[in-house]
């Protein structure tokens, strides 16, 4: 009852959903990519949050606690998808793109799509490590705490995930080049001098 929650200074279930739901939804979209419908996963996360809310002891922040539940439910969903090979494809509907900066957005969209397509093919543990570290920017130690796996294990999963993702992207680039009939970047040769990543700036 809302009255008890108010008396105990706790947010009501609906307040929890309204306050933290949008962040959960954004988090799930960032985890599953722009072309995946996450409504069912969102529902599963919030149902789990509501079910476990009475047992929330307040040892951590509600936001952190909900994030952990989100990760757990998302991981289960990734396992299902991985098992069923139900990864999204390039043929599926994309988010609407406004007319301004269409070219840039399409390029970003393409880059994003390629990345999430590759992530969708990774083993869920590796996928989670790459997502949380390389996209969400969480330090390895924090990932280790949140997913409940040893630091070394998370590190290994990250390295393996990155290698597989890079291999997927290389393969995809190769097949696109072949489909276009040219393989300008397929031949080894001197690289342009300005083609350096952030790492080169150090």
């Amino acid at each position, binding site marked *: *009852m*809302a*009255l*008890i*929650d108010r008396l105990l200074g706790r947010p009501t*279930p*609906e307040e929890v*959903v*309204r306050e933290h*739901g*949008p962040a959960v*939804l*954004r988090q799930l*979209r*960032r985890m599953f990519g*722009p072309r995946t419908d996450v*409504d069912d996963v969102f*529902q599963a996360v*919030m*149902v789990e949050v*509501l*079910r476990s*809310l009475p047992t929330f002891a307040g040892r951590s922040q509600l936001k952190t606690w909900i994030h952990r539940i989100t990760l757990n439910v998302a991981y289960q969903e990734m396992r299902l998808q991985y098992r069923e090979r139900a990864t999204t494809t390039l043929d599926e509907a994309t988010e609407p793109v406004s007319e301004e900066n269409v070219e840039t957005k399409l*390029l*970003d*969209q393409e*880059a*994003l799509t*390629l*990345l*999430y397509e590759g992530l969708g093919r990774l083993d869920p543990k590796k996928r989670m490590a*790459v997502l949380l570290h*390389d*996209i969400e*920017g969480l330090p390895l130690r924090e990932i280790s705490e949140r997913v409940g796996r040893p630091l070394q294990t998370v590190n290994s999963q990250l*390295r393996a995930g*990155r*290698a597989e*993702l*890079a*291999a997927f*992207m*290389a393969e995809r*680039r190769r097949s696109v080049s072949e489909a276009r009939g040219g393989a*300008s*970047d*397929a*031949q*080894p*040769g*001197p*690289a*342009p001098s300005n*083609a*350096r*990543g*952030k*790492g*080169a700036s*150090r």
Partner: protein
Amino acid sequence: MSHACEEQRQLLMAYVQEELQPLERARLESHLENCKRCNALKLQITSSLSAAKAWAPEVDPEHFEHLVRRLSPYLEQRQERSRIGFSLLLAGAVAAALLLVVSIRLGTLSPARDRDTSSATDRVVAAQPTPHIRMVTSMDWDGKVSAIDAQTSRITMTRGFGWSSSKAATAEGSWSVLQASTWRSSGPASSSRSRPEARAASWESRKAA
């Protein structure tokens, strides 16, 4: 793709994330300078990661409302459970309050009025004739009642809760005592006896019987 390319490719994401050790980085950069394909892949990875990091999915308020509506059965279910919990809590609180009131009420019937004059132990406290217990020899504040069994002549002890337990013992029918006054009839001053006195009175009673 050469073996060198394959080896360096595995490090590309760490390179883009600036997490390579200096030696590894130098080796990779040297490779990138001579390999267009790996260089293009590096650009692709940089572009994809940048797009993903910059991507801030928007939440459409209408769509979110739709999702909240989908959750309404769970919200109501939770409220119903809370309501049941609240009812149980309320019932428990009422029961506890009743128990407290009854205890206080009984406490006023107990020898509380005698607290400032003398100890309640070693006192004859009841005087109803019964077949089994010859006499009650004492009752202390913990509700411990001592009585002499009529058949064995042993002192038996009961434990209870204040006056109510001795009252319950009375209801079971167990008191058989001489002319000793009770709390009710004569008050603490006239009923006060030490245990040896009570026991002596009991023996006298038996002899007389």
